[in-house]
């Protein structure tokens, strides 16, 4: 790693520079619309003559439907249509997000075979929502129930299926562990967790002839229209998806789901626009969240605390009819230098909806295991939890055996510890008290890979002096609107207020998924390229066009700043608007993509925007690319009642260059509070008989409230990393949550002397022994 010069440029506002330039703390440009209540979300689009669909879900976990009597529902006032497995429209199979065909059989959004409680079994469409809901209650469904496996804690589930492709190994980990002087072996568990964006899922679908328009919150517009198009055997151009605002997704809004199939087919069958809002309880089974995970970690070490071996045996739940892998080794095999490692993972099918991505899938539970285990080791060998992490610091990627592009994790430990006051920590558990409360200080690290996919952007400069940036990429709160405006403003040389950004519409140039924390990097890259090309075209015109006043200067370049074009050595300058008017041009329009030059055909673009097959792995190339973080956390525990409150968080994070520190900090903090909720509150409770999610509402599935959140200080320790992305950024959105839960568990141990190895850390786990 190159030593950091004292005055290293961070590429953000700490370097100084214009208040709106890339790297500045410009306030979110979509803020006012949201705060005025004027931002229109998917379900708020109400075309004329719209009908309402309500979904009915199964009440058994496994079995089949003998019969559905829909007559009473059909006869109810206002009812237009009842869709059941008997009359569901078969849709064509699709190409999945991995590029593989889903199946060779038609897709049936409703089937008689039941695989989990809460599976969609019917839909009622009526003139009003109330009528549809009332009629939905009239459906008589005769089930034949089969034995089911509600969770992987049920002995019937067995050990599951090994995923050989996920196995990682180097050295002889088993033997090294057996021979190690110090050994730790423990099992760490996480429960089912749910995305719960505050905007529930749903859509409004409308057909005009064979053209389908869908208003639906989406993290991945291109994949979703392709999915809808394939279902109905249409070219992608025949489907338009509009999603300018997304009320949170956290991984759950990237795919067209069963309810999307139902709403679009209902709209087709009725030839009317249909709105389908998934109710909050239904969101718990209409798509999956993070699966329950368990992992047994065996750490072998020297008496001095040097790791000799890591053995991991992990498992996650999946559904009986789908596969979801939560990669449990992703941090285990990356964070520490160990001469021997072996990691294996099984998936265990149970009667649940197929799990899916929830903020930092893989990294999150993976860090939970290893960051708790290394902490246990630190007490075992009697060294400081930060010191043991530095002792085993990985100087290169221990798995890929490649150098890190940047890894400012040492700096993160250093700056975080300093800001937190870690040096004052009494290492002994139960040694710190404040009145009735036990105080604990814990630490844990986290990481998230840099994922890279190409993108595309359209930039227009208009004769009135405004410019426009357009992409189908989306903004669900991360700040895409703002940073793309900043990027274009800087590249062209225009005031940021003059730039309008259009997003989340499949009619605009394509973009890959807003997931894997990649969108900001890839879209700033594409916009920068397109905007720079637009600027070059503008300058070219100014120099060469006979109508241009700059022509006689015979300059070989001009500069543009603040929307004004100036000759290099003084002289008359002129606004962009004025120049375009003089040239008689109404606009300059440039579209650019960042696909490789030898692979940018239409088919390549489809593969890039509609699948993840063109997403480059973090170790593709000469370097291993990752973002890093460390969390220092203080907890207060009331032992009489087992209550834990997080009272202080200091996190130091390396996300490379921050395009807008205000937005990035907000993302990090959002991740950290989700981590606090994960550590202390969040848990999908599954009824052991019916496999039902008992707490399927926001009153019982507890996410952190304001009162649960302490002061959070975030410190950026990153520097621009141009191996990672065109403009130097690394991952932001999913980084913050990784490592928070283990830091809290480690703090709880320090406070109480009790190791809680199963999330969440609830009242009763701390009472009793």
């Amino acid at each position, binding site marked *: 790693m190159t030593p950091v010069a004292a005055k290293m440029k961070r590429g953000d506002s700490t370097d100084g520079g214009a208040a709106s330039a890339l790297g500045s703390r410009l306030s979110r440009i979509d803020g006012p619309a949201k*705060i*005025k209540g004027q931002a229109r979300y998917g379900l708020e689009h109400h075309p004329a003559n719209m009908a309402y669909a309500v979904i009915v879900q199964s009440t058994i976990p496994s079995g089949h439907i003998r019969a559905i009597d829909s007559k009473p529902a059909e006869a109810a006032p206002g009812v237009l249509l009842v869709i059941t497995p008997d009359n569901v429209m078969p849709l064509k199979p699709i190409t999945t997000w991995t590029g593989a065909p889903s199946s060779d059989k038609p897709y049936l959004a409703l089937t008689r075979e039941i695989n989990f409680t809460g599976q969609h079994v019917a839909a009622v469409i009526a003139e009003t929502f109330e009528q549809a809901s009332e009629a939905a209650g009239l459906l008589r469904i005769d089930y034949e129930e089969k034995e089911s496996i509600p969770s992987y804690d049920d002995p019937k589930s067995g050990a599951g299926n090994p995923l050989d492709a996920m196995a990682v190994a180097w050295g002889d980990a088993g033997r090294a562990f057996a021979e190690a002087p110090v050994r730790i072996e423990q099992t760490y568990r996480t429960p089912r967790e749910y995305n719960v964006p505050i905007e529930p899922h749903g859509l409004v679908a409308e057909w005009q002839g064979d053209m389908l328009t869908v208003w639906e919150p989406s993290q991945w517009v291109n994949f979703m229209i392709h999915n809808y198009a394939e279902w109905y055997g249409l070219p992608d151009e025949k489907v338009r998806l509009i999603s300018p*605002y997304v*009320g949170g997704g956290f991984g759950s809004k990237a795919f067209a789901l069963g309810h999307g199939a139902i709403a679009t087919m209902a709209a087709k069958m009725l030839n009317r626009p249909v709105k389908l809002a998934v109710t909050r309880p239904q969101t718990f089974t209409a798509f999956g969240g993070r699966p329950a995970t368990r992992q047994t970690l065996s750490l072998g070490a020297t008496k001095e605390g040097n790791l000799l071996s890591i053995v991991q045996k992990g498992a996650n739940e999946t559904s009986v009819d789908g596969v979801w892998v939560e990669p449990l080794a992703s941090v285990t095999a990356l964070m520490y230098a160990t001469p021997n490692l072996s990691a294996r993972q099984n998936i265990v099918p149970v009667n649940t909806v197929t799990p899916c991505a929830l903020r930092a899938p893989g990294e999150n539970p993976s860090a939970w295991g290893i960051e708790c285990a290394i902490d246990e080791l630190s007490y075992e060998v009697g060294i400081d939890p930060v010191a043991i992490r530095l002792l085993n610091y990985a100087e290169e990627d221990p798995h890929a055996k490649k150098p890190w592009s940047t890894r400012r994790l040492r700096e993160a430990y250093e700056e975080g510890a300093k800001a937190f006051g870690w040096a004052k920590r009494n290492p002994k558990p139960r040694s710190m008290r404040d009145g009735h409360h036990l105080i604990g200080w814990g630490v844990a690290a986290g990481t998230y890979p840099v994922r890279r996919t190409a993108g595309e952007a359209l930039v227009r400069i208009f004769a009135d002096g405004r410019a426009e940036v357009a992409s189908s990429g989306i903004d669900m709160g991360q700040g895409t609107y703002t940073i793309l405006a900043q990027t274009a403003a800087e590249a062209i040389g225009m005031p940021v207020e003059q730039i309008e950004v259009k997003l989340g519409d499949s009619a605009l140039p394509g973009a890959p998924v807003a997931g894997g924390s990649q969108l900001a990097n890839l879209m700033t890259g594409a916009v920068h390229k397109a905007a720079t090309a637009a600027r070059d075209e503008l300058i070219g015109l100014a120099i060469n066009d006979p109508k241009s006043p700059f022509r006689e200067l015979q300059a070989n370049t001009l500069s543009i700043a603040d929307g004004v074009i100036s000759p290099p050595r003084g002289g008359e300058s002129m606004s962009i608007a004025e120049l375009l008017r003089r040239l008689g041009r109404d606009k300059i329009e440039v579209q650019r993509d960042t696909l490789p030059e030898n692979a940018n055909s239409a088919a390549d673009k489809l593969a890039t925007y509609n699948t993840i097959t063109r997403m480059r792995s973090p170790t593709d190339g000469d370097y291993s690319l990752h973002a890093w973080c460390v969390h220092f956390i203080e907890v207060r525990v009331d032992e009489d009642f087992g*209550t834990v*409150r997080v009272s202080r968080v200091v996190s130091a994070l390396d996300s490379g260059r921050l395009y807008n520190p205000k937005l990035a900090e907000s993302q990090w903090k959002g991740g950290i509070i989700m981590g606090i909720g994960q550590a202390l509150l969040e848990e999908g409770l599954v009824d052991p008989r019916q496999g039902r999610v008992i707490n399927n509402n926001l009153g019982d599935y507890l996410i952190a409230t304001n009162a649960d959140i302490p002061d959070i200080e975030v410190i950026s320790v990153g520097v621009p990393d141009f191996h990672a992305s065109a403009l130097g950024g690394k991952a932001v959105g999913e980084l913050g949550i990784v490592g928070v839960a283990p830091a809290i568990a480690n703090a709880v141990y320090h406070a109480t002397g009790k190791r809680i190895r199963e999330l969440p850390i609830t009242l009763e786990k701390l*009472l009793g022994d």
Partner: protein
Amino acid sequence: MTARNSIRFLRRGEVVELTAVAPIRTVLDYLRLEEGARGTKEGCCEGDCGACTVALGSLKDGRLVYEPVNACILLLGQIDGKELVTVDDLSVSGKLHPIQQALVDHHGSQCGFCTPGFVMSLFPLYQSGAVANRKMVVDQLAGNLCRCTGYRPIVEAALAACTGKPDDAWSEARLEIAQTLAGFDDGTDLFIGDDEEFFAAPAFDEALARLTEKHPDAVILSGATDVGLWITKQLRPIRKIIFLGRMRSLREIVETIDSVRIGAAVTYAEAEPSFAAIDPDLAELLRRIGSKQVRATGTVGGNIANGSPIGDTPPALIALGAGLELRKGRQTRALPIEDFFIAYGKQDRSPGEVVAGVSIPMLKRGEAFRCYKITKRFDQDISSVLGAFKFGIAQGRITEARIAYGGMAATPKRALKTETAVKSLSLDDPAGWAAAADRLAEDFQPIDDHRASAAYRSETARNLLIKALTEMAGEATRNTRITGMREFAHAG
């Protein structure tokens, strides 16, 4: 006397009068579907997330007061006589409202879906003229969930905007608004619909008596923080509603030297000062019920009437020795509140009978009270266990004890055996306390559920009793409370 057959409320400076109102129409549906005002969001439809928060202006003792409410579970008929303010109204002629501007400046919004709700939770705080401090803001926002921002930017925005000097269209029009609202208060009974399907909001005792006699099957409605969920979640086909919120006799608070009588239709928010006058723990308990939104409409009467084993006020009221007043037609009767709760889902109340009020004796010299609510999440969470204790103390000994728990049995329940054991305990001799606490096992056999296990409940109940005794043991701890940063303080 003829009843009024329309509801009236103030909206954007205009009086809205509606004659055709389905009894179960919610304010949220009215806004989004009828008015087309879609700034107000729906995130859960059960009062949990606050995305649907709107503000209601009303006159309280002649003063114009704004309160946040959950539009998703509030029935349209309940806003009769009030002013309805939504996020769509706040920026006047393109200029952001000071709260909105502060939220923009402090980056209080990410995905933006929760944002209108936060704006409208802060609007009443802004109008109140209070100089906001952190504690007030945290309390104000307890009912709003945000999955994105981490809350702090919103708190900072609130502190920046609520500086004690409201200066907006509402503060300018205060007098006018107050006059309009005063004009709404015509004292008539309200009845919309027919005998089969109606929303009735009587103002007078005779009208209520007539209605309950004629329609014993009607749903009695107070704040709708329970009933609203029957409508939006359980989809119960409710056709007849008798709303008590306009009943003058049920909206009174009468404080005397030795007791406080709280009318059944008094909201939590309105009862707060009187509860505080009885004991600070009672006020703190109230503050931890639901959220500002829930407390703005929810009532103590409803909390008692619904008979829930995990309702928060009943155990406290039982420990305090409160008396309940019930009214059927023109008849009233009184009973000790613990006798009201017969079994799970069963109360001593006949169809058409209403809870009229609760009388709470003031603490006497030598009496002390403690009440603790234990939850997983600090705010907006249902109690795992709630313990309430009233002790009479003389010469370092407990002479009288009333102890009640919530979450320990199928109803809120007194711990009679434990009370006997606690009486005569010496506060100077903690060694004796454990034996008394053992008796809890005879009083309660709690069950496991998703909020807590039976073992946890039993152990916590014990620890709460010991905690109460410990706090009573010294003169100083008996009469003081540690408040501090409430995010960190817990269970008192």
